[in-house]
């Protein structure tokens, strides 16, 4: 089949762009282990009030110094609030939702996940700088979405 010279150039250019974009996703995923903070861990969102971990949420320190923070998001608050964690220690956030989809972003950092009812989103973050951080819900969740703000205190 005869393909015009210029057409050939554009076809290869388009193919190179697709390869570049796919590479930009796949290479960090493989080399830097970047992946969405959703692993398939499920629970019953209607029974969250009786859940041993998420009924009150909380900050628990393991024997090796790492910290697990369990957060339940619901309309229109994060539980617990405020959250207090140590600086320079790996903090594992475990986040779920009691009702609709919420967001969980520690503003100014790259700690960012969705809180999906029925699922646990998990991510590990180390905060180097002590201070007060804002936790923002960044998924529209209802009429008071804009007031759904929590506080993270890093000491």
């Amino acid at each position: 089949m005869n393909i015009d010279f210029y057409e050939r150039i554009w076809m290869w250019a388009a193919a190179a762009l697709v390869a570049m974009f796919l590479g930009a996703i796949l290479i960090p995923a493989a080399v830097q282990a970047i992946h969405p903070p959703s692993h398939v861990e499920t629970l019953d969102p209607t029974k969250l009030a009786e859940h041993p971990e998420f009924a009150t949420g909380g900050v628990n320190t393991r024997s090796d110094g790492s910290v697990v923070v369990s957060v339940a998001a619901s309309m229109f608050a994060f539980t617990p609030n405020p959250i207090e964690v140590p600086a320079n220690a790996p903090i594992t956030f475990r986040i779920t939702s009691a009702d609709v989809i919420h967001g969980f972003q520690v503003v100014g950092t790259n700690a960012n996940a969705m809180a999906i009812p029925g699922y646990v989103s998990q991510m590990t973050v180390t905060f180097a700088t002590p201070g007060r951080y804002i936790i923002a819900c960044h998924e529209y969740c209802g009429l008071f979405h804009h007031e759904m703000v929590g506080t993270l205190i890093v000491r």
Partner: protein
Amino acid sequence: MAGKHTLAASHIGVAVAAFGVASFMGVLQALSMADIAFPWRSESLYYMTLTAHGVLMALVFTTFFIMGLGYVLARECLGRIVGQAAGWLAFGLGTAGAAAAAVTILRGQSTVLYTFYPPLQAHPLFYIGATLIVVASWIWGAIIIASFRAWRREHRGEPIPLPIHGLLATIILWYLATTGLAIEVVGMLIPWSLGWVEKIDPMVAPGATSRPISDAPVISRSRAKRRTVTRMRHARPSPSRPHRLGRPRRLQSTRRRRRRTRASRSARSA
């Protein structure tokens, strides 16, 4: 006798009408956020207008405008459109769907934004209306493809007109993109909003699953844990840039809020 572009003009007419309503909604949205004494400002007005603006601009306006443009291009480049009657049927379905969805939004029954992530629930007619718009666009795609095939039979060996090449690529992408949406809306959201099924899995909805990917550079626990920690050391608030969310914007005045709190407190003690 209808003009040669009547079908196209009808689509673009609906698109422009949706654009007009959406623009007005945009103004209301700004007024319900701005720091001025706008008497009707409220959370529900803000999010209702945000939904209407998004749905009418991003979904209705674009879809109808592209359908109209497609008919113009097909008519001009291919000489004729095969299946005009089906085109009018699609136009009727799509317009009825857009109107139904718009009415439920404007009545405040479908304040779910144009992303409509479940389990945030809209009125059933919102989902049915959205489905009708998509079905209309599928019929439109089939008409363009049929018109192209008819043209091809009469013009063997001729190169495809460039606008038609682009149009066919658009239609292929559109079919790919809307298939998942149609499965979500018809298979999950419509039965759920009508109460036929009790609960749905928000993770299965394409909107919800595509978002964590866009929210990516979160580095979760993983085999590359040490690298994770060193990268995360850089996580700190940037003092140079004041956070937009630093002081949550209040939609209600403090006085109104205080009054509300006081009212609920006295109700509780009573």
